[in-house]
């Protein structure tokens, strides 16, 4: 809420105040996806800003540029993951996980003295990949339209006289307001002139 922060707007004194929180529309999957999105932001910033220590840590010194590019990719995938289009972000994250695993697999050679660190990194990425997959599957299932659940509302005309008999009922009635003309709809109220605070 940047605008609210900048302008300092606040709730008015007389407005109802929160006493206790109740059940939320956010599901467990929503919360997991949100956590994965923020994880992308953190990892992406680290990879983008400090690729050197990460590369040295797993014995991929020659791949700083690639790790920085992966950082940019993480940040890009965080945007849809944190949006309402979660499935797009999670799919991007899964694709990124595959790239990460592929790159880390090159660090598992016996000749790499940091092979042990690379193994740990592979295990971590595999764990996150599993979470990404579970979240992706749950999000897709939650938003999927089931073919058998199509509802037919063809009896709901909302026109009690039927559509053909209703055609033009509102034409040429003097009581019908125009889009340009005000009406006397406010009645005879004579309100006090004080504005609300």
């Amino acid at each position, binding site marked *: 809420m940047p605008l609210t922060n900048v302008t300092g707007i606040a709730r008015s004194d007389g407005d109802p105040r929160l006493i206790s929180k109740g059940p*939320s529309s956010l599901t467990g999957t929503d919360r997991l996806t949100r956590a994965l999105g923020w994880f992308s932001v953190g990892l992406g910033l680290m990879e983008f800003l400090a690729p050197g220590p990460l590369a040295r840590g797993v014995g991929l010194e020659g791949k700083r540029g690639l790790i920085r590019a992966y950082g940019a990719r993480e940040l890009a995938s965080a945007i849809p993951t944190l949006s309402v289009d979660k499935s797009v972000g999670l799919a991007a994250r899964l694709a990124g996980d595959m790239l990460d695993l592929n790159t880390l697999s090159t660090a598992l050679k016996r000749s790499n003295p940091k092979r042990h660190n690379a193994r740990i990194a592979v295990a971590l990425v595999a764990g996150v990949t599993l979470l990404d997959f579970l979240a992706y599957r749950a999000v897709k299932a939650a938003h999927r339209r089931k073919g058998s659940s199509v*509802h037919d509302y063809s009896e709901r005309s909302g026109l009690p006289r039927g559509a053909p008999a209703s055609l033009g009922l509102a034409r040429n009635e003097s009581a019908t*307001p125009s889009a340009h003309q005000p009406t006397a709809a406010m009645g005879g109220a004579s309100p006090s002139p004080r504005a609300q605070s």
Partner: protein
Amino acid sequence: MKALVWHGKEDIRYDTVSDPQIEDARDAIIKVTSCAICGSDLHLFHNLVPAMLPGDIMGHETMGEVVEVGSAAGATLRPGDRVVIPFTIQCGECEQCRRGNFSVCERSNRKGELGDKVFGHRTAGLFGYTHLTGGYPGGQAEYLRVPFADTTHIKVPDGIDDEKLLFLSDILPTGWQAAAQAEIEPGDTVAIWGCGPVGQMAIRAAVLMGAQQVIAIDRLPERLSMAAAAGAITVDFERESVLDRLNELTGGRGPHKCIDAVGTESHVSLGQPDTLYDRAKQMVMLETDRPHVLREMIYACRPAGVISIIGVYLGLVDKIPLGQAMNKGLTFRMAQAHVPRWTDDLLRRIEDGQIDPSFVITHKVNLAQGPEMYTKFRDKADGCIKVMLKP
């Protein structure tokens, strides 16, 4: 009391909050008997509308019984009165209210300075919406404080169900205004994009106003079936070309009148590539709206036709073909609904059996189920078109 409260993106909670109090002589408190979730509530649910605060109470489609009245509101309201509350708050005295332009009332937005800065000039206060429009607590709650209550109410008679009256608060006059500002004439072909609740009301309004041919455009079979029930010709934009169908139905000349009942959140799909572009820009805050429908309407509309915009737009749109619009001589009409301008007439039509707005209700549940219904309504799951909530 219990209320549905905004806490952030996709986070609506059924919370316990303090009861509202009379704050001004023109206030009233109503005990809510029925309320509903509006399509524009989804813009808040998706956090697309700026200036919301965690703790804001949702809801702007509300009716109930007056339980307390301020001293200056007593001339028109008494405890026990049955009222529908318009989603716009109006003072009834300013120049705009006197002209019938109630949704741009000059005095009801209590944070008007903010509205002046963002919109150029303030608009009316709204219930359960952004602090740009006053930040008034909304009506998805057990009780509601109604500011300027002496003029911000529609008295309704006993003996008619809430289901038939509730939508005088918003979607019925909103759909009606969409058709009225399109200036429908006999013989007109009217194309309506979006068969959500407002689109459904606009279809009925167009029929009652005498449109010769009403074309309803959507992709959801349940919504299209509801549109067809009122005699509309339906176009499923995922299965057929909207432009080809409109030309086919109008001898290649396009509809005389086009109504946008979609607004800012056009459906995103590969079949509408511009929506992918808009969604990407929206995610990185380079654009606030996805105006696919607006672009398509300008292209489809018959020269010298009317474009009526009633779907809510939020701020900045991109790639609008204004050159086409200008050279085709299109007229643009748009506004948030000036609710009381229409409600006397619409109440009479309900009483007269010309229209029964309850047709649109697909889900009627307890207020406690509100959080899950937001998700269901957003996902269009279980045939959900309109949710009515009972506190």
